[in-house]
């Protein structure tokens, strides 16, 4: 599998999901379970991605400069800082800690 195939298959699935919604009957919305599962799937995927991106190197768990960086980002999000500010600050925190040799 190449990166191009991954990009195109993921893109096709995204459009198919959206377009299908325009073709199915409205009464599907009367079942709140489907809506709830779809919304919770988003939360579950994003949260798992935060954990894996913060903690893993391949198949190992490594605690390094990402932890303080993500904690700083969390603080900024709690203060309602703009997305790009929190994200850039997280990158800078991790980079500086590594340059100083304080964290891997």
């Amino acid at each position, binding site marked *: *599998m*190449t*990166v*191009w*195939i991954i*990009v195109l298959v*993921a*893109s096709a*699935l*995204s*459009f198919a*999901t*959206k*377009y299908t*919604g*325009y073709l199915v009957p*409205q009464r599907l919305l009367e079942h*709140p379970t489907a*809506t*709830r*599962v*779809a*919304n*919770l*799937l*988003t*939360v*579950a*995927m*994003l*949260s*798992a*991605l*935060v*954990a*894996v*991106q*913060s903690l*893993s190197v*391949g*198949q*190992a*768990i490594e605690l390094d*400069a*990402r932890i303080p*960086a*993500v904690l700083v*980002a969390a603080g900024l*999000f709690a203060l*309602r*800082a703009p*997305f*790009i500010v*929190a*994200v*850039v600050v997280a*990158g800078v*925190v*991790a*980079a500086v800690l590594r340059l100083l040799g304080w964290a891997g």
Partner: protein
Amino acid sequence: MAFSESERVALRAGIAVGVAVSTYGFSFGALSVASGLDIWQTCVLSLILFSGGSQFAVVGVLASGGVAAGWTAIASSAFLGLRNGIYSIRMAPIVGTSPWLRPVAAQLTIDESTAVALNQEEVRSQRVGFWATGIAVYIGWNLTTLAGALVGNILGDVDGLGLDAVAAAAFLGLLWPRLKQLQAGVVAAASALLATILIPFAPAGVPVLAAAAVAVLIGLTNWFRRRESDAAVPQPDDESQPGEVPGLSKNGDAS
């Protein structure tokens, strides 16, 4: 073309949201090329896939697992995008009545366009809100994706400095506005825990996919719910507002 007052409100909200969301696009573009995708692949994701969380998931999983994690990258992206299908069902009677415009409406059906549309009271204003937001976000998101990709390309290999932390913070930023209800918080905590436990045992990408089981379990049983009623789609005024942009109150009406 003369707009009524409520239609102008919807139009302004849409444009404001489009501008605000564009900063996400820049982050995505830079992160994507730094993760090893080229500029074309990065731009195709924004042009065709066009759903922020799913795009970040594709590049995030590829960054840590490489093309070997291709199927898990695709599956993570697809699971993240299922909510767009629900938004589409909700938007169909409002903006999907013409078979010719339906594919365009489908492509623009995302958190932000749905939220702004459903925040309006009249159907005409809902239409204006949907199209204004969808078009503004589409243009802004794609232009800033390209800009971010070009800047990321110039910066070159920043891996090992702060890129991994940037990806983690980006996912946290997308998650943050969705954590206002107890049920979502429980799902988030359990998903993070399950994924972390699985890291040493499962191939790259699988810990993330496994977290889907948490959402399905709690979604089907409706454990930890706080309210009796479930809106078919989270209303913008609702606490679980989809696509709320941090730092921007209520769909950009702040202006």
